[in-house]
């Protein structure tokens, strides 16, 4: 018997969920609905109606603001729709309700579920309710509309099976059919597998095939980055080799790079910091909330899964979407609208990071129409740990394999192989099970227990269950020794999974640790203390085989050598040819004030503060330089500075850079710009360009010859940046599936994205600087050399509908020295404010500094001595240039001057909140700050109201 409790907040004004939904309904263009009311529905199995009434009163409702009923309707007089998670999608709330009921002495409760009802008031237009349900409420991959009370909440199923696949006899076409939508391997790889089993004189099990498909997936195997390349007919070293070779030349700070779940560099006092940046594009494209949330969850696990365990101290988020006002007709079949994607992705990152207590404090959002087929969702995380546990652990023969954290379910099957495939109009339907919702509290418990175990010296090696689940985590951890796993021990969310599903499921919030037998009992005790499930799955054998059994039956028996080294190295050809475009003719501006406002309200420039306010960026108490600061806390800063150890002044600086539009002109220039921007952002707050490390994320279309040619150039840029700045990349990720293929033959290549993240150490967070102008009457100086002839890819060109041909190109020979000189001046304390020049150019940097400082500015472009159009000077996006505020002459400025970095005084800050720009002896414009600020803040306020 199921009891139903419904809870609502009476009074339209207080039903915030209803009000929020109504605003979103308005955005869909539906005006017939005038009021939305919501109610929570709790289904409770195994208890009496009286007990349900007790729970309703004591637990499920709040007597001050809510009312509750048992086994009756609570919303009426309008169409009511109930939305719930699909059976099998774990609802984290269920476990909490069970626990609380037990605390209240109600012990008969055997299952619980929760869902939400929505009532739509106004003239009833049935198909509009359906549009609301489809467009805003139900993501069919994880949710459904409930039409009848279920008979039971318990999920039953038959115990799992294991099948043998008759592979040895298959023809090529049958091999490819087997691979399609399931294994995502190519014919050559399928043939290698076939040959292995012909040699073994038996057919594989489904578990074995799935294990190989996961390990050999592009996601896990990085086949393109490891391939032998032929570019324009000339052989070149594999991409990954080039990156690793150059990185190894600059490894002074490096503790561990490209081998563990994150890259690790030295911090201070015997501590190390690590960073990892991941992408979660494919899951986020079809279920943005869960996709982005589990993206964060996954990259957090990479951090705690580094060395013998690190504490996660920061989260970052970098997104690329189509414009949120994209007309619906331009949306490719099977794709979700960017307005919905943006809001839901932000909510996913917010809810996971906030609940984990990990501050999200660096990020950016970029918009381009070509992201309409697939967004780019980049999530990063950073951690800290003692140096003695910062290197990848090695299990020993006889060590035990323990699984910690969440249970295994059908969620997240095929994430690794799926994300390696291209997006098609079938993606949403075929791959629904690849999507999961996260349970951050489960992950929090897991991390709490792991860090306690680490501090007690109990962990030999650790890794997270990410792509490929147990198959990848255990298979990789045991690569050198061999492992034996008794899979029936794995705790399941529900019965009915086949063994291969248990083995490859990417169910969230699970970690695998290697523990010496004598420590196992203590690990289990610690886990129990944190309400964490821990299970001994198997052991490291020394026989160099991957053996998996289920109730004594062998379901997988593969040579580790074949699994990890059997994948044939690809030989791939690439072609690069600069695109043929004409340099556009841009009319001379007439209305400068309107132009300035248009640039500031360009979506790649505008304030992203409403997103940041939803992220808890202050938790852990470590933030020493926040994303937004200044008089009204609304001026943007270039990077974040954390003080991770409360009683020491040491700082961790985190920044990033990317410019997908430049990659459309030349990925080499885009790569240089991205890396320069990342380092310039780091320096702009006080980071040391000589004591940092970089992380790459390549999000690229499927590597056909053309795309691979572009990728080759981007990698070359990264290599040149390493050699110029003498800083290494220590971690990276490639995601080469940004191509959309529609049923009608439409092919959309999402713009190639290279995101470069930077993190570095400084000895004293007190020696840092923010971007907000600190006083009127101070001098404003431009550092660096603008390139007004290089307007390619600029926001200014974009406003005119052009891409251009000449991208801004940083001077790699000079810039490293210049930035170090600037860093030393920042440390001296005489720099009052500093901001780097990026999208929107000098004009945007100036406006942002004025907004932060609540002052105006009066600048004269003639001071630059450039023979160029004033619009090109103002809006040139030369990375590695800065605006700097120094005290007026009557103040002590320490003789602030630069020996090498070109510097010009261009004007001064003013009490009057107006920006005045002079050129050629005339005033180009004189605009009130209030107008500029409103233009800059408006676009995201419209999305996040």
């Amino acid at each position: 018997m199921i009891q139903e409790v419904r809870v609502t907040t009476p009074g339209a004004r207080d039903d915030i969920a209803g009000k929020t939904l109504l605003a979103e309904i308005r955005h869909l263009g539906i005006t017939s609905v005038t009021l939305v009311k919501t109610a929570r529905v709790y289904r409770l199995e195994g208890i009496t109606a009286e007990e349900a009434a007790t729970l309703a009163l004591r637990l499920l409702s709040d007597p001050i603001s809510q009312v509750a009923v048992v086994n009756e309707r609570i919303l009426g007089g309008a169409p009511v729709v109930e939305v719930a998670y699909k059976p099998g999608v774990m609802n984290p709330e269920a476990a909490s309700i069970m626990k609380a009921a037990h605390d209240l002495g109600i012990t008969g409760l055997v299952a619980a579920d929760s869902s939400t009802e929505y009532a739509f008031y106004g003239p009833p237009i049935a198909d509009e309710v359906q549009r609301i349900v489809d467009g805003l409420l139900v993501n069919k991959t994880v949710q459904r509309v409930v039409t009848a009370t279920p008979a039971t909440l318990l999920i039953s199923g038959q115990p799992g099976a294991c099948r043998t696949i008759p592979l040895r006899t298959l023809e090529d076409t049958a091999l490819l059919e087997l691979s399609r939508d399931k294994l995502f391997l190519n014919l050559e790889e399928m043939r290698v597998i076939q040959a292995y089993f012909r040699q073994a004189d038996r057919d594989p099990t489904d578990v074995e095939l799935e294990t190989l498909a996961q390990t050999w997936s592009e996601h896990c195997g990085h086949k393109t980055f490891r391939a032998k390349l032929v570019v324009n007919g000339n052989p070149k070293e594999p991409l990954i080799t080039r990156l690793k070779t150059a990185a190894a030349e600059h490894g002074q700070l490096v503790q561990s790079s490209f081998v563990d779940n994150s890259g690790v560099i030295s911090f201070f006092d015997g501590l190390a910091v690590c960073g990892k940046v991941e992408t979660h594009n494919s899951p986020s494209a079809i279920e943005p909330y869960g996709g982005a949330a589990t993206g964060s969850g996954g990259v957090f696990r990479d951090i705690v899964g580094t060395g013998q365990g690190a504490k996660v101290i920061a989260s970052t988020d970098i997104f690329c979407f189509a414009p949120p006002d994209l007309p619906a007709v331009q949306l490719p079949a099977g794709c979700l609208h960017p307005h919905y994607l943006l809001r839901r992705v932000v909510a996913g990152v917010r809810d996971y990071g906030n609940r984990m207590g990990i501050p999200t404090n660096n990020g950016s959002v970029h918009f381009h129409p070509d992201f309409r087929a697939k967004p780019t969702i980049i999530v990063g995380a950073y951690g800290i740990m003692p140096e003695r546990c910062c290197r990848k652990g090695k299990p020993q023969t006889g060590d035990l394999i323990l699984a910690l954290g969440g249970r295994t379910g059908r969620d997240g099957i095929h994430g690794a192989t799926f994300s390696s495939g291209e997006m098609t109009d079938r993606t949403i339907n075929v791959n629904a099970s690849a999507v999961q919702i996260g349970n951050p509290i489960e992950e929090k418990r897991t991390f709490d227990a792991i860090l306690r175990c680490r501090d007690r010296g109990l962990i030999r090696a650790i890794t997270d269950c990410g792509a490929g689940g147990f198959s990848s985590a255990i298979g990789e951890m045991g690569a050198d020794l061999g492992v034996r796993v008794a899979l029936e021990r794995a705790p399941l969310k529900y019965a009915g999974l086949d063994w291969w599903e248990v083995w490859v499921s990417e169910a969230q919030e699970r970690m695998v640790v290697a523990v010496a037998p004598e420590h196992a009992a203590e690990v289990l005790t610690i886990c129990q203390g944190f309400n964490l499930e821990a299970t001994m799955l198997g052991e490291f054998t020394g026989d160099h085989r991957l053996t998996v059994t289920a109730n004594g039956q062998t379901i997988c028996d593969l040579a580790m050598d074949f699994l990890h080294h059997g994948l044939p190295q690809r030989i791939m050809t690439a072609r690069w040819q600069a695109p043929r475009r004409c340099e556009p003719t841009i009319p001379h501006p007439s209305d400068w004030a309107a132009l300035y406002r248009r640039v500031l309200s360009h979506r790649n420039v505008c304030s992203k503060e409403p997103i940041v306010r939803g992220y808890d960026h202050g938790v852990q108490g470590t933030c020493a330089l926040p994303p937004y600061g200044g008089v009204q806390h609304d001026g943007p800063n270039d990077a974040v500075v954390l003080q991770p150890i409360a009683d020491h002044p040491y700082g961790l600086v985190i920044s990033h850079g990317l410019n997908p539009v430049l990659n459309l002109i030349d990925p080499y220039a885009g790569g240089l710009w991205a890396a320069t921007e990342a380092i310039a952002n780091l320096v702009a707050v006080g980071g040391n360009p000589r004591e940092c490390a970089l992380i790459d994320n390549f999000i690229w279309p499927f590597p056909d010859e053309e795309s691979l040619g572009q990728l080759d150039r981007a990698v070359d840029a990264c290599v040149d940046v390493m050699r110029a700045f003498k800083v290494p990349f220590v971690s990276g990720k490639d995601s080469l599936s940004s191509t959309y293929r529609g049923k009608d033959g439409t092919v959309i290549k999402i713009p190639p994205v290279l995101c470069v993240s930077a993190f570095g150490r400084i000895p004293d967070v007190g020696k840092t600087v923010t971007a907000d102008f600190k006083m009127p009457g101070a001098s404003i100086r431009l550092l660096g050399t603008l390139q007004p002839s290089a307007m390619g890819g600029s926001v200014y060109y974009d406003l005119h509908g052009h891409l251009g041909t000449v991208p801004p190109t940083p001077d790699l020979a000079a810039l490293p020295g210049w930035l170090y000189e600037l860093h030393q001046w920042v440390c001296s304390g005489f720099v009052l404010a500093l901001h780097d020049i990026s999208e929107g150019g000098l004009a945007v940097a100036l406006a942002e500094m004025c907004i932060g400082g609540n002052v105006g500015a009066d600048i004269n472009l003639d001071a630059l001595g450039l023979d160029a159009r004033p619009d090109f000077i103002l809006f040139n996006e030369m990375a590695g240039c800065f605006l700097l505020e120094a005290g007026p002459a009557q103040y002590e400025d320490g003789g602030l001057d630069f020996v090498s970095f070109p510097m010009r005084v261009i004007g001064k800050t003013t009490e009057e909140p107006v920006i005045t720009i002079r050129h050629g002896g005339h005033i180009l414009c004189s605009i009130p700050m209030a107008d500029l600020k409103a233009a800059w803040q408006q676009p995201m306020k419209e999305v996040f109201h």
Partner: protein
Amino acid sequence: MLFADGTNCDAETAHAFALAGGEPETVHVNQLRSGAKRLADYRILVIPGGFSYGDDVASGVILANELTTSLASQLQTFVDRFDTLVFGICNGFQVLVRSGLLPYRPDLGKRMSATLTTNDSGLFECRWVPLAVEESCCIFTRGMAGQDISLMVAHGEGKFVTGDGCLDDLRANGCVALRYGNNAYPDNPNGSCDRIAGICSFNGRIFGLMPHPERFVRREQYPNWRRERGRQPDGLLFFVNAVHFASDPHNFTA
């Protein structure tokens, strides 16, 4: 420092107490339930911020339920002592409100007389807000009345709403310890009635607030310390007062 699944502001809150001269110890709620640790051995019970049990059903409700069922008698004894303090920050304040400890009622867990509900904006709000420290009987704000301070808020359910007569009682008994500096959004970030940001029990020993004082106990934690060089860390005084009281409850003066 009471720790439960999802507690996440424990380390910085412990640091704040240590800076103030206290000896914080983090105790898992399971240790209290099993008897491995006893509330009777402590002077201050802190419920730090976070998302206890994921804020499932509503913020703080699962932990509040645990406190008022399995731990009810320990908690009642602790609160009834003259020399103890209870301090709930953010999620901890939500727990105190949902367990009936704030606004204080002697019949623990039986009824709530106020609630903390979804912010008017419908959004999680992480921002610095101006606050006014009020004349009240609160031990934690002793000596601070009349000060205008700044603290960070970071919550989605912080709108303080009172039941019948509750607001008048709070005012009459000097239990409103902290108000948001202005009533307009975003300075009143959640739409709380009467700008209430923090309240205490009538004896001043139980205190809950939505802002995070533990996030401003060092100069560099304030975003604008570079422009406001003389600014003292506003959050530290709450902890200093608590430690002074706990050290010598008979002779406590700010």
